[in-house]
Every structure is written in C-alpha cells, then in structure tokens.
C-alpha cells in the first residue's frame, strides 16, 4: 500500500532573515534559502522553530508560503506573512535582518492547478490571503481569470500588497467592522461574484468557519472548492496526529485525516465540517 507521506521535497535547514517589514497588522518577512524555493508550490507551508535557546516553546509553528522565488544567481527566497499573535509568532516577527531561523519546508499539499483556463475565485481571510497571490500568478499564467475576495475583522488585517493585486482581475474587500470595503463577511459577497464572473472554481484560505461557509456556497452551486485548512499542528510532518479533520477518502470512508500531509489544501466538499470537539458519526473507527 502506498500510504500518504510528507511532501517529498521537504528538508530541514537554517534560513537567514533578509528583510522584515511591518505591513498593517502583519510582518512581511523574506528568508534566504537555497534551491528549495524552486520546489515550493502555492499552498505549501513551512514549519519554523521559535523561541531560540532556552525557550519554553517546544513546538514548531506553521506558516503559509506567501511567495517562493529563485533569483538568477540561484539564491532562493521564501516570503511569509506573520501575524504577531502569541509568543511564537511574536518571537518570529521580532527577528532582525541577519538572524537565522530553523525551517522545515516545503510542507503539505499545494493548490491544484487546472490544465485548462478557468474562471477562479480566490478567497482569503486575514493572513489567509498569503498563499493566494502566488496562486493568482500561476493561474494568470495559465490564462485563468482570477477574482479575489479578502476579508478580515478590520482594515489593518487585510493583507493585499500592491504587486499582489496586479495579478487579479477584481479585488473585493470585506471587513467585519466596515473599516474598509464592504461591511460584512466574505460569504456575503461571494454568491454575487460567482454569478457575475461565472466562477468555476473557488480557492480559499482562512478560518475554519469561513471555509465551511464557502463549502456550503460552492456545494449548492456545484462549484469545485479547494481550501487550505488550519488545524493546530504540533509537528507539521505527519508524526503526531494532532492536526486531523474528518475527511472522506476516495473509497468513500471518512477518516480522521492529517491536514499537514493530506492538507493543508483539501477538497472542501470532502471535509466534514462539523463542530470541532466532536467526532462525527460514521467516521472510521469511531
């Protein structure tokens, strides 16, 4: 049997901070890496150890890859968008140019790219926009039309850099407090865009409740939905079993499935979006 395993390109290495800039509520950080950058696909993530020597933080933190590029001289760059939140992300956001951090990358599944040009809607919540810009570029290069919706609690939490916006045909912003764009949630504006742009596929990344709401919308309309989920991860490499979601497999059986290996990008229609804190009935081995 060929059981699922981690991204075959994943390696562990130290990466140097090349740049660290505050953008709204986030830190945009650039790391110097080697050719590993060429293996990263939109949707992949990195797992970073945080805290330095003597830290009390024993677990890595996962961050979506915002952009991965290889410069003509062969130097690879990995860019991340960090929301300083708890001790781990705050430590990372405080790294200075020249500091080294230990990474494992690239990890996880990537967004599937259609072979034909399609009309795609990309939906990001908060820092969930991070992996969408690189995805938009790939889609544009394939001749796709790309609409984008970004939502957050307030304006400062919308991450949408200029150069990113260039690759999308339309950008709609929603904020819970109305401080930017439409006052409301992404799910309020998505149906309209689907209709007006004749969307064929939705790509999303953000809080689980958002992904679940988008799944409902896409299922109703029979639209494909690839979402990047975010479950608490202790290891990021498939060895701890903390990051699971109930997901229907190809054999129709619902299993508690590791989102660090079989995700973070998953087919939204296969995920059983129950309340967390419960194993849904019918899950294998319940």
């Amino acid at each position, binding site marked *: *049997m060929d*059981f699922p*395993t*981690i991204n*075959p390109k*994943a390696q*562990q290495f130290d990466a140097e901070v090349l740049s660290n800039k505050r953008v709204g509520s986030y830190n945009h950080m650039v790391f110097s890496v080697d050719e590993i950058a060429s293996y990263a696909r939109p949707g992949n993530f990195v797992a970073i*150890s945080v805290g330095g020597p003597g830290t*009390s*933080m*024993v*677990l*890595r933190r996962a961050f979506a890859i915002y952009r991965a590029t290889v410069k003509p001289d062969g130097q690879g760059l990995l860019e991340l968008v960090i929301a300083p939140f708890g001790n781990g992300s705050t430590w990372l956001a405080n790294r200075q140019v020249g500091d080294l951090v*230990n990474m*494992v990358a690239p990890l996880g599944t990537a967004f599937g790219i259609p072979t034909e040009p399609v009309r795609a809607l990309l939906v990001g919540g908060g820092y969930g926009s991070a992996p969408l810009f690189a995805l938009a570029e790939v889609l544009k290069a394939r001749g796709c039309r790309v609409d984008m919706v970004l939502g957050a609690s307030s304006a400062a939490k919308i991450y949408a850099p200029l150069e990113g916006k260039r690759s999308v045909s339309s950008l709609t912003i929603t904020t819970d407090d109305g401080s930017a764009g439409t006052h409301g949630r992404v799910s309020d504006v998505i149906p309209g865009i689907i209709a007006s742009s004749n969307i064929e596929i939705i790509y999303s990344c953000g809080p689980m409740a958002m992904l679940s709401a988008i799944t409902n919308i896409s299922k109703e309309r029979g639209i494909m939905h690839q979402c990047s989920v975010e*479950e*608490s991860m*202790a*290891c990021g*490499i*498939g*060895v*701890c*079993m*903390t*990051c*699971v*979601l109930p997901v229907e497999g190809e054999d129709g059986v619902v*299993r*508690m499935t590791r989102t660090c*290996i079989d995700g973070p990008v998953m087919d939204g229609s296969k995920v059983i979006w129950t309340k*967390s*804190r*419960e*194993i849904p009935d019918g*899950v*294998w*081995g*319940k």
Partner: protein
Amino acid sequence: MTFDFSTAMAGARFSNPILTASGCAGSGKELSQFFPLSELGAIVTKSIMVKPRSGRATPRMAETPSGMLNSIGLQGPGIDQFLENDIPWLKEQGVKIVISIAGESVEDYAVLARKVRGVAGITALEVNISCPNVENRGQVFACNPTTAREAISAVRRNIGGEVPIIAKLTPDVTDITEIAREVVDAGADGLALINTLLGMVIDTNTMFPKLSQKTGGLSGPAIRPVAVRAIYQVHAALPDTPILGMGGVASGRDAFELVLAGASAVSVGTATFGNPAAAMVIKQELEEICIQRGFVNFRDAIGFAHRAEGGDGE
C-alpha cells in the same frame, strides 16, 4: 579503544540506545525523509489496538510551558491492517521494530499478543497499559496493581517465549515501584518509563478546557524531572529489570541523565515534533558525552548515578 554504543533489554539487542517513543514517529515513513530509520536503535510504533480507531475529536493538543498536552486517543487502523501495511515497509528499512500494543480489556491484550506472536522479525513488544479499562469504570490499567498485572499476564501467556515484553507505566500513581514490581512479577521482561502525566489546559478565551476531551497527556522537557525520579526509583527497587526511559528528552545531555538514573535505552517523543532529526542529534550528542565522561561501554553508564557517593569534592 572504540566506544561500544550497543545496548540490550531483556534479550533484545540494539546497535545504539536511541529509540523513538510510541505515538511520536508516525508510521516511520514520515521520519525516513529526515534520516535512515536504520540509524535508530529501534522504532517503537504507535500503540495499536484490536480494531480501527478514530481517536479523539480535535483540538487534540495544547502547547504548555516546556511541554505539550495531547489527547490523540490512540487513532489507528487496528492490528490487522497495521501488521499488513506498516510492518512490511518498516522491515524493508532494516530498522529494529518494537510494536506497541494497547487494549481496552484484558482480553484485548491477549488478542493483540497472539497476533504479534505470529509475526517474524519483531524485536520487542511494548505493552502500553496506560489506557482506560472499559471493564473497570475506565480506570487506567497501570493505575491499579491488579489490572496492571492482569494485562501483562494476558500478554505473557499469549506471546510465547521469543519476544521480550516491555510494560509501559504511567507516572500518575502514588507508588510507581509497586506497579513495577507487580508487572515484572506478572512476566514483564522490562519496563518503559514514563508515559505522559494527566494534565489540563483551559483556554482563557473560550473559558472551556482547550482539549475536546478536557484532559490530555503532558509530555516534553517539563516532565523530565518526574521521568528521572521514576526511573531512579524503579532502578533502585528492581536493579535487574531493564528500563526503556523516556520523558522530555531533547538533547544528548537529557538522554544521559535518564541513562545515569537507570535507563538501558531512551525513547525520544515530543522532541521530534520540534526537530524531525531530534533522535539523530540526541544519539550523536549522547555518544559524545559518554566518551567524554570516560565510558568505554555505553552499558557501564546505565544506572551510574546509583553508585555510592565518593568523598572527593563530589
């Protein structure tokens, strides 16, 4: 003189004393991307049960100061699929295999032992008795001398004489030496110390316990002093019973500490989550420390902290 890093536990021999900890190495395949599994003393598999198991609902983990809580709930495919799918691949890797089993009843342990008995090439059996006994109000087998004994006896009767039995105990008991004596008396050839401590984290935002099952198992460096104490106590009480030590080992120094306390080999668990190559780093550091301290045989360091204290400067 070359340093002899090999070790043995109740007839099971390992080329070096660094093993993975049960439940912390996936199926093995994931880690094999970071180092050849054959570099390990052995791989200890996740605890496998009779039937497939979904495990607990999420959230299943919470980070804690120098540690973490988990309540995976023994998710796994059940013994049959496990023996069919996981074990053949591991054998191909040339790594010694310690199968960990877990049951919900004494009969489960008997069934599991019989299944494993039929499999060639298993180096040892780790018997995780830190599981709730559904026949006894869900009390953990290893929390009660009688049920601990019954589970191990059931394995002993069914495993045959080939595969050494290592009983894995919980530290959440008033006197761990009492349970240790009981299971050794029931036929355990060695002991694995320690499993996680029962803990809880409350999410101060939701104001509910963070884990879906409320409590979880505490692991990582936070618990190392408890592991060292348990290993030291049990080694003092049962000097002839080999111990597979574990609990918060994140460096060669830490592994050495458990060895000095009485561990014949050391399992690495939580540290692998922070560093996929942890077992290899620890292995190398431990070898260096042993050599630096003047040991020619790794085995001479086992339980070394129990020697009489000298008068000199110590």
